[in-house]
């Protein structure tokens, strides 16, 4: 239940804990255009969310969990 990093995308799976925020931040600093796949994510700690928001990350796939999707879209959907 963690984030799987690829060359150009990060796949979030299951519940993402608070400890994932630092590596995520580091990865996003190196992969500014990296795509984020949240489809398998069930919950993520808001520290991670802050990182995604600050990085203006491109969300490739929204969570299939509609409740979580509502929250994340409100925070991450680009105007």
């Amino acid at each position, binding site marked *: 239940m963690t984030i799987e990093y690829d060359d150009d995308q990060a796949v979030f799976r299951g519940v993402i804990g*608070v400890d994932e925020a630092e590596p995520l931040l580091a990865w996003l600093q190196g992969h500014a255009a990296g795509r984020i796949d949240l489809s398998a994510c069930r919950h993520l*700690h*808001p*520290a991670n969310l802050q*990182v995604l928001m*600050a990085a203006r990350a491109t969300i490739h796939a929204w969570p299939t969990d509609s409740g979580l999707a*509502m929250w994340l879209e409100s925070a991450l959907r680009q105007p």
Partner: protein
Amino acid sequence: MTPGMTPLLQQFLSEARDFLEGIGEKVMQLEDRPDDPELMTVLFRLVHTLKGNSGLFEFREMTRVLHAAESLMDDVRGGRVAYSKELADRLLDAMDFVGKLCDEIEREGHIGAGHAVDSARLAESLERLVAGAPGAASEAAAAEGSGHAVRDTAAASLAEVPEAVRRDAHRRAGEASGVHWIDYCPVEECYFAGEDPLFQARGTPDLLWGSITARQPWPSLAELDAYRCVLAFRMLSAAPRAELDEYYRYMPDQVRVTAVPAAALLASLGPPGVPDPVAPRAPDALVPAELAALAALFAVQRAILNLPVAPGWQLGRLEAVAAALTGCVRASGDVVALTGLAAATATALAERASAPLVAWLDGHGVPPERASAPVRAAAASAPPGEPPRPAADPDLEIKFGRRAEDQAGGTRSLKVDQAKIDRLVNLIGEMVVSKNALPYLAGRAETVFGVRELSREIKAQYAVINRIAEEMQDAIMAVSMMPVAFVFQRFPRLVRDISRKLGKEVTLVLQGEDTEADKTIIECLGDPLVHIVRNSLGHGIEQPEARRAAGKPAAGTITIRASQAADRVVIEIRDDGRGIDPMIIKRKAYERGLIDESDLERLTDQEAVNLIFASGFSTAEVVSDLSGRGVGMDVVRAAVEKVHGSLAVDSEVGKGTCVRLSLPLSMAVTRVMIVESDGQRFGMPMDCVVETVRVPRCAIHTVKHSQAAVLRGRTVPLKPINSLLGLGAAPRANADGELAVLVVRQGDDWVGLIVDELRDAADVILKPITGVLAGLSAYSGSALMGDGSVLMVLNAKELM
């Protein structure tokens, strides 16, 4: 007693009231002498102690406010904050709040969730006065306007909520719970406290919609601190206010809940930038189909009102129409119209006429002709624009009734000096004794003065006084009575800690905790009980493996049971451990020189078990910090005997041990048996009297120099009381040649005291012997009798 009300909690509540009273008093005194450092210190100490006490319980709301008050008082005491009237007001408000919480705890056993918000506000209002609070002034200003600010942001943000959600919300707004807007700003350090605000927000009851925004612009990624929470959560929920408060009760300062009027939900459906979205403008916001339906409904109601009606039905019909109209108006969210309608309904019902309602319909009929002058005028009586659940001015909600205005509710306990109670107890004792003089008087009236009539009347009066005095005695005793639970409540913790230390598994069963006894007795009980329980844990209960091997459940059981038997409290401590092995006891006692070789053979098992009470006896193989410190059961025995109690132990090897304590309910009045010998009267405390018998001279056997008789199959040594007390006279027998024998218990031994005559029993107040007579250990005290004579009360133990 309210469930969940422990004696500890009761004590806390009673003390808290004292503290609150003290704080109020000191604040009042400070008004006159604002610079008195001593008063300040006292005040701080009071608040500080109260806060500390409240921390023992899960009363976050209370502790929070008290903590704020404490820091404030600390600053005042240290001269960092000047004392002011405003400060006193806020402090008193806070204390009133705490008092209110105390009342609630007493009633309900806990604090309702609804207080979290008040608690946060009060604490905040106190904190704002604390010196060096960051931006104290600006915060104050912010808080002043916060009520409005929240409402504005809520309304403005409503526009962000998707239309579908708002329609749903609008539908739900008609329900009793209403719809609430929640602003949740977690503190920046919350991640370090292990909090997950998103999880918290997602769990909001009856969540309709939620969004997350950043509270400040994002820095570049290199400067970003991922673990500093800068998110703000906004939500729309259909849950009732109370439920939301309950859900967010641990973070009341981070959450603002605002009721959303139904109208506002629809109002913001228009294009963004609609002027003043909060003001109810409902009917405009309805879609054309809804408007048509509304108009149709109104038309039908108007038609009904215009129908002829039988006089008896008029009221019912008016109420029905009013209810229908109210429903329509509420659904449309038109709050202003609602107040107007309420006024019109009231008038119509009062006049028993349809006219006011028809007039209202004329005014409101179908938009856009509505909003005519008369309705507005009617509505003006109520403040327009007030949402149904106003987010009232925070200051208003902080105002709790001052204590003085409170209705005297709940039981008030009175704290009384122990000395006053003692005096009462002594006085009632004197009273009991002096009322006992009346039968003597009656006897004298008959025998000396020969007035039988008067004697009878005195006896009748005596019966009345006797009854009242006894009742009074009961009542006074009850004042100083306490449940044994006071002592028992320390055991669960004690047993848990010790059994864990020893690696044993023990279940503690407490029974009869509400058995009551005199305070002095209860207080004397604590240490002996702890010692006995420690012994049971240390020596009685075996290790789990040993227990399993012996075919017993791995977890041992210790049962402490209190019960009342006549005028005594009996406390039993029973364990199902290995029991006491008489052989081991005998050997140990022999090793320690407590018994000699002949005793080794002679002692029965029960006698051997009783050796554990002998002084200097401890069977522990290893001296541990738990039991076996050399102070053994003899200390327990001494402590119990000090309060005229007795102690017995039963044990069966492999099955367990039972220690039984028997204590008097009260020490104030002692019941004694009065005997006469050589022309003197003596008292013997009733708790050591076994029986009184008359033994014929021929039934007394003389063994060597001692006399003995067989009573109920038991050989009882007989001793003439005269020789024990050094009186020269020989025992006198009655006309039938029988000797009066008072059989007394001394530990497990019975001894028969030969006396001249057995008299009756009496309640006396035992006074210790003082002065030159204090050295006479044969007597445990003296008592004044009803006829004015002094009765010497014997000390059975010392006499033998």
